[in-house]
């Protein structure tokens, strides 16, 4: 299962010298472009189309169906529509920050995919500190959110930004601590190692995916992830019915697109992390790894959409208290519990 | 490998930028950021020479430095907050009830 990173595979494929830096830079760009395209495709599919269809299905509606099969071409229509809208800069906006925020939100989420093994050798880079890297990059997004909220000079935005930060802060630590409990099993932060460690059999045909080995951690991680990506029940940063749309209230045109896409990429990134550290990465029977990987991240996406439709939003005080008094304690307990289990079994 | 002098120059430059910020800015928050810059200059040195010398001492210590920097900021912001409450300003030169 463990294979060389994507640029190296490409070099071998093309018969180029993998030790030459110049070659590697070029091939890395190629690989990065590939992964970027892949993820943007996913997002484009999910954002304007899948989200609507799924929500509609939950609420027993039809949603988009006019353009193309199953209304799929709405993606193109929406893209053109949004890109060609006028960009309105709100009064008193803090200009550089206001411009940078969408960029940060979109690109940081994308950056996280660099270390995710997607199967079939589609694994851009495999640094030793992969998991730490991906957590680091994923949490950078909140900087973009607070920048957007602050720079807009809008009270809703400002509150949204604040809420986003408070929420990310509250759930970041449980997320990381739960992730750390997986590392206790795997003994490495390298993504390929973590995936490799999940390939043994647990009971019979059931693989030792950490979701099965440590279901408690899996549940905690799923919840924390929901909060991280800001989906119901933890969507108070946007909370359209309270503060309109939070930090994105004042954004329009391409900036809005970027923020919107960034959120979806972020959801997929969360899915990718879950898939990698809990669901055996791209592993799965019969189908090729990349397909399994896509199935898993779309599964997580479906889960978030289901939660979005099914679960009511928590209040800010509930959010904070669940995070600090519930999740954090549970995740600390989980960490120690895992350590004891691992310590006893080795 | 990139020669060690490069890292030294980089860290020295960052350190000096931080120092410059401290000497010229009067906003307590910018002051805090400048201090962070200086600490990070130290971290660059530590990590770079950890690689150079081939031992982990520097890297481990840089983790501690980061943690302490964070704690320092936590305290610092707290003090800036009470400063603001008492003087309704975060200008460090405004607080002058005592003479130097």
């Amino acid at each position, binding site marked *: 299962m463990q294979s060389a990173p994507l640029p190296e595979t490409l070099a071998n494929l093309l018969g180029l010298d993998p030790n030459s830096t110049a070659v590697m830079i070029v091939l890395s760009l190629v690989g990065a472009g590939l992964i970027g395209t892949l993820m943007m495709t996913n997002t484009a599919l999910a954002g304007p189309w899948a989200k609507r269809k799924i929500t509609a299905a939950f609420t027993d509606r039809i949603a988009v169906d006019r353009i193309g099969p199953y209304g799929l071409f709405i993606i193109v229509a929406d893209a053109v529509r949004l890109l060609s809208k006028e960009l309105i800069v709100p009064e008193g906006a803090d200009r550089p920050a206001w411009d940078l925020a969408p960029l940060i939100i979109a690109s940081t989420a994308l950056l996280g995919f660099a270390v995710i093994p997607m199967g079939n050798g589609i694994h851009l880079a495999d640094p030793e500190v992969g998991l730490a890297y991906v957590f680091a990059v994923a949490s950078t997004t909140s900087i973009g959110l607070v920048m957007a909220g602050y720079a807009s000079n809008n009270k809703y935005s400002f509150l949204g930004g604040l809420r986003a930060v408070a929420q990310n802060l509250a759930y970041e630590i449980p997320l990381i601590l739960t992730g750390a409990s997986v590392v206790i099993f795997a003994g490495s932060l390298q993504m390929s190692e973590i995936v490799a460690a999940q390939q043994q059999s647990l009971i019979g045909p059931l693989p030792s995916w950490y979701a099965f080995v440590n279901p408690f951690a899996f549940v905690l991680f799923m919840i924390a992830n929901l909060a991280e990506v800001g989906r119901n029940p933890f969507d108070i940063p946007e909370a359209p019915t309270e503060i309109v749309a939070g930090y994105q209230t004042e954004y329009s045109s391409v900036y809005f697109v970027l923020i919107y896409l960034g959120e979806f990429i972020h959801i997929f990134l969360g899915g990718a992390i879950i898939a990698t550290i809990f669901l055996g990465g791209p592993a799965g029977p019969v189908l090729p790894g990349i397909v399994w990987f896509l199935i898993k991240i779309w599964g997580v996406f479906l889960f978030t959409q289901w939660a979005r439709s099914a679960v009511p939003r928590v209040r800010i005080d509930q959010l904070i208290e669940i995070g600090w008094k519930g999740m954090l304690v549970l995740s600390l307990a989980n960490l120690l519990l895992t350590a004891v289990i691992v310590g006893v079994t080795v | 490998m990139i020669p060690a002098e490069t890292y030294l120059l980089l860290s020295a430059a960052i350190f000096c930028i931080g120092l410059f910020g401290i000497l010229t800015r009067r906003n*307590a928050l910018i002051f805090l950021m400048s*201090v962070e810059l200086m600490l990070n200059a130290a971290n660059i040195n530590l990590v770079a020479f950890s690689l150079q010398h081939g031992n982990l001492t520097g890297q481990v*210590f840089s983790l501690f430095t980061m943690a302490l920097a964070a704690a320092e900021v936590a305290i610092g912001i707290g003090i800036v907050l009470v400063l603001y409450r008492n003087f309704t300003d975060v200008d*460090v030169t405004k607080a002058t009830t005592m003479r130097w």
Partner: protein
Amino acid sequence: MVALPDWMALAPALSLALASLVLLLADSVDPDTTNTGLLAGISVLGSLLSFGFAGWFITAGTGMADSTGVALFNNQLVVDQMALFFMAIVGSVTTLVVLASYDYVAEHSYQAEFFVLVLLSATGMSLLSAANSLATAFVALELVSLPSYALVAFLKENKGSVEAGLKYFLIGAVSSAVLAYGISLVYAATGVLRFDGVATAISSGTVQTIVDGSVQAQAGDPAVPMAILGVGILMIIGGVAFKTASVPFHFWAPEAYEGAPAPISAFLSSASKAAGFVLAFRAFAVAFPIGDLLAAGGAINWVMAFQILAIATMFIGNFAAATQETVKRMLAYSSVGHAGYVLIGLAAVSGSGEGLSLSMSAGMSHLLVYGFMNTGAFLFIALAEYWGVGRRFEDYNGLGREAPVACAAMTVFLFSLAGLPIGGGFFSKFYLFQATLNVSAWSLAAALIINSALSLFYYSRVVKAMWIEEPTGSRTIESYPMGLYTAVVGAALVTVLLLPGFNRVSEIAFQAAQLL
């Protein structure tokens, strides 16, 4: 000799840490508690335990495998006589301070936090005494500093306190950044952070590394770049100068000591300063031995640097103190001056061995005596603040009539600080004097004498106000707070007893310095 596990050697630090955790727990159980007695009791117990352990270990040598002390955590911490000596100073000062704080914080909110912060800071000081690596030293130093920033700004409704906290923090943050950068440069030059490793690197001239706890030459024997090392050492001197309130990083001291709650001023000016000095003593004696440094073509002669610093600190501190209008600020500047005296411990070093131990033990002895007399003096200020006596010299007029016992204690502190033979301060100053003459550092000796004479002038202003002047205006002292009185009188007793008992102190200090 009782055989204790190795980690028990840290008991003085651990008991402080434990007490702070117990306090946190107590405050968690009942966050709105106003049971100052319980909180202060836990703190006093913890710090007394710390002092007791340190004293026990010093006298009984319990847990000491041999005379070189107990090395812990891969030699990152070393509990030897020197560490225990300073742990004892910290323990005693902390005891006095928390005892005195019992009355002081009774009318403030956040009492538990106050004690927790004091104890955490004391834990840091205790650990700093044992730090045997630039890494642990830095961590411990920050553990000392961070709570003390908060403590200085503890009276958050009081502009003076907040301003003092801000200034202390700003300068502290800068100096810790400078220190960290200095440490990183030393690491860059030598490849190690442990003091013995740095020393080996300097003496052998090659970069070292640590394998399985022992210092070894780095593969390929790269040479130590002396220029980088020199800059690093210079920056470390800067960091030490801040913590010890020495020139050129002394500006915070008068502000912080004046603005802070008086028990905290006592704590900072005594224990915190001692902690800074233990770092300096250990780092410069163990990691940067001056003989090897100069022999290896070291770019910096730190003895010279400390000589300049010592003289400058003495003069600036004492002359500024002489011009002050308020008692607390006068004491604050005088404590800067005292930092100058202690710096002699590093400035009067000649080579290693005997000369080194003599000057360092002189500095250490002065710190111990100073710990009691200076703490006592600031606690007397706390008492005055408690009574609502003003800040200026005139406000102390005639206080001797209303509170003769406390004023007698204050008189003892002040005269002992000045170096009159009424307390241990006389001998410790003389010891420093002897150290300067031992290396024929006439300028240091002259500075010491001139400044002692000058200090007598401004200290006696307070004595004059308390005893000789007529009280102005009406002032009634309603209560005589037990905790503060106990602490002040206790400190005075110890200060006086240190006159006949100085021998024990100087002996231990000398042994400790010799073992370095």
